[in-house]
């Protein structure tokens, strides 16, 4: 199956094109102010690199987040409207799963981490390898780095952008020398999104093209922000 996968949860445009288990293109256009505006032009570039056109694509994978709220909105919109426009199916894939998928070569538990942007807050979850893919074994975690120690009870690999910076704080919080934590610097990849989507599409699963929505995870933060905004407006 020829699948296009995209993830814009960090503003960067991660775009991958696969054909079966073969990766034809796996590009990351770095995050810039105009990254989100360039997403469709970048998709065109990636398809050309893969030697394909949009007509060849049989389905779409899209990173749902969590991450930048604006970023995931653009990615999800592009994913579902491309699917609607071409009449092909779309699968939303949680971005934490995308990160975990690329770290599965190493054994042990996998803990993908995404910065929530503001302050010290991170998104995370624990994944275990399972039949060539990964499966989530905990609830999604939203909180500070130290709090991760509550769910990390055995050796694990922490994967994400800037995870090295978490090492010290996490070690202190863990206290126990038995729990070995390895750090792996990585960003969500478009090809991983495509491979995960392809696995679901092959099982006959896909998302409803009209109702597909981002995975924000931080509803409470959004509520707090919205309330602050409303209060400020009230005073104006």
């Amino acid at each position, binding site marked *: 199956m020829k699948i296009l996968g995209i993830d814009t949860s960090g503003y960067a445009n991660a775009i991958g094109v696969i054909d079966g288990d073969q990766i034809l293109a796996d590009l990351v256009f770095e995050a810039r102010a*105009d990254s*989100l*505006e*360039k*997403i*469709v*032009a970048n*998709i*065109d570039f990636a398809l050309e690199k893969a030697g394909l056109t*949009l007509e060849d694509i049989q389905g779409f994978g899209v990173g749902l987040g969590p991450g930048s*709220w*604006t970023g995931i*909105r*653009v990615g*999800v*919109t*592009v994913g*579902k*409207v*491309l699917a*609607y*426009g*071409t009449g092909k199916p779309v699968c939303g894939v949680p971005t934490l799963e995308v990160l975990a998928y690329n770290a599965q070569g190493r054994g042990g538990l996998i803990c993908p981490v995404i910065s929530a942007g503001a302050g010290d807050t991170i998104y995370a979850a624990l994944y275990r390898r399972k039949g060539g893919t990964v499966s989530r074994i905990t609830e999604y975690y939203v909180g500070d780095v130290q709090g991760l120690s509550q769910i990390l009870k055995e050796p694990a690999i922490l994967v994400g952008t800037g995870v090295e910076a978490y090492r010290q704080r996490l070690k202190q919080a863990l206290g126990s020398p038995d729990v070995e934590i390895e750090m792996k610097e990585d960003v969500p990849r478009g090809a991983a999104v495509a491979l995960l989507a392809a696995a679901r599409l092959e099982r006959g699963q896909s998302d409803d*093209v*009209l*109702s*597909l*929505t*981002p995975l*924000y995870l931080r509803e409470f933060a*959004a509520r707090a*922000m*919205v309330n602050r*905004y*409303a209060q400020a*407006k*009230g005073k*104006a």
Partner: protein
Amino acid sequence: MLVLGIETSCDETSVAVVADGKQVLSNIIANQLDLHRRFGGVVPEIAARRHTELIGYVLHEALAAAGKTLADMEAVAVTSRQGLIGSLLVGVAAAKSLSYALKLPLIGVHHIEGHIFANLLSNPQLAMPHVCLTVSGGHTMLVYVHDYCRYELLGATLDDAAGEAFDKIAKFLGLGFPGGPVIDRLAAQGDRKAFKFPRPLLRASTLDFSFSGLKTAIINAFKSQIASGEALPLEDIAASFQEAVVEVLVSKTLRAALERRATAISVTGGVSANRRLREAFQESCRREGIEVYFPELSLCTDNAAMIAAAGYARLKQDGADDLNLDVIPNVPLEVQGGS
């Protein structure tokens, strides 16, 4: 030529199908007012989330209502300039995806240019050149329309939009959001001469507007009643406030038309639905021998039909944009085009 229009610049998610820039085949507008009402204004994060949820459904419904399929579309026009950045990005992402998937010419439209075309859609007999007042919760802008796609900015608000003043006063009086319709309704039962509220910049030579001081003026006028918890004369306040705003809008627009020797005025945007504003414009324009036009009510507030109509004219004049089309939250009408 069938143009698909997309508008998501503020809090309406809208998709339309318009034939040859003239005939509206469908114009679906998903209003988010219920979501924003309790905050007394549009909350950008809520608006952008809602656009993302709704865009597919609204697109689907616009095609169905027009009795067309995506394959029938010949171009896609989208509001890419002027608005909330997070909201604009959703519409532009959708438009670029459709343009790419169906190989349709893509046209980025300035939101205010869309409002100008709302009137041309409703009133094809509207003469060129003319003076156009766009007035809503987001904008108050006087534009000299030389011809299709040729504009000159004459004046704009220095602070709040006129519709924003309606919202603030309605909030202060505890009347809810949005303020326009409820003040229009109350004012009909009030005396518009009961109170003399300030007419900001009315006599100044500029064609700019200022509405931010009105709320303070009204609070000051009723300080003692507010302090003692006495009931406010809501109908009279609404009517007198509305009259102050209407007088400024009408007199500045008329002055612009007379200065430019324009024979026609068009009034557009959400506040152009206000009954007293329409009445005052009609009275004054009749006196001066100037024609005045308003869009039909469905085209007053933000909608995609006006974007499709403007996009059609832009496509004929400048050709299409490419997939790099920029999203610009704040840019004056006069320097837009040909991005």
